[in-house]
């Protein structure tokens, strides 16, 4: 099992493999919700490994190089059905802990981002978005999501 939403991110890793066959996304959503994850309607999880960076469990909005100072809108993060596609590695769906952690991480992060976009008129600079979701910035939304996901797993373990 690779680590976290991105490699080496979560202190509760490695997550225990509990399945021989992967959960469906629907089953995983039910499991995550049963462990306290609030998943907003605007998220759409899919197993799309070719859109998940190496050493990551999940991703979204892998847009690559953008011009400094350019503005990105909340609507740029949406698919043609108005949802944010979250891409998963299939092996996330082989572990109860990974499901809860990864779905919890992404749901937390995107919920916070939606609030921040809304508070800023639905747009922000690419630098601002990068600073919010980068693993290299302490105390940002991404690191809050990591802490939230780890807490969910600790509760699952009763520790």
């Amino acid at each position, binding site marked *: 099992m690779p680590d976290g939403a991105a490699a080496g991110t979560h202190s509760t890793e490695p997550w225990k493999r509990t399945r021989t066959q992967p959960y469906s996304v629907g089953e995983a959503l039910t499991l995550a919700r049963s462990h306290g994850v609030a998943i907003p309607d605007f998220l759409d999880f899919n197993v799309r490994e070719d859109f998940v960076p190496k050493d990551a469990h999940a991703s979204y909005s892998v847009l690559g*190089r953008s011009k400094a100072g350019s503005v990105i809108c909340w609507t740029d993060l949406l698919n043609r059905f108005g949802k944010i596609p979250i891409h998963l590695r299939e092996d996330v769906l082989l572990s109860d802990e990974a499901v809860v952690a990864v779905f919890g991480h992404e749901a937390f992060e995107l919920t916070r981002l939606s609030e921040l976009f809304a508070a800023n008129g639905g747009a922000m600079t690419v630098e601002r978005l990068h600073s919010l979701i980068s693993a290299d910035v302490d105390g940002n939304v991404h690191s809050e999501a990591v802490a939230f996901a780890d807490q969910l797993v600790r509760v699952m373990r009763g520790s």
Partner: protein
Amino acid sequence: MKSIDAILDYYDRGQVTRLEAVAALARLVTPDNVAEVMASLPEDWMKELRRWALTTPAQGGVILGANLTDAAAKKLAEQHCRAVQVIRDWLASEGKIQLTHASNA
């Protein structure tokens, strides 16, 4: 990375956003296949990829993507740098744009 048809199918099914699809299409481009890739794309996607190449910096800028490790971000940046240059050079060779300097916006 999948083929053009696969990427466009992912978009149609809502599995990726339009910007993600364009970024993925760009990663398919090489000096050897740029004409083929551009010719294979539906017109609206060809225009979108062209716009991407003309507005994306070949150097610098910001690398966006959730859960990108440093190595993954570097690889993606390099792929996009190459794609920007290849597409701009192809557009120039086709007389579709004039470049005063091919390597930057």
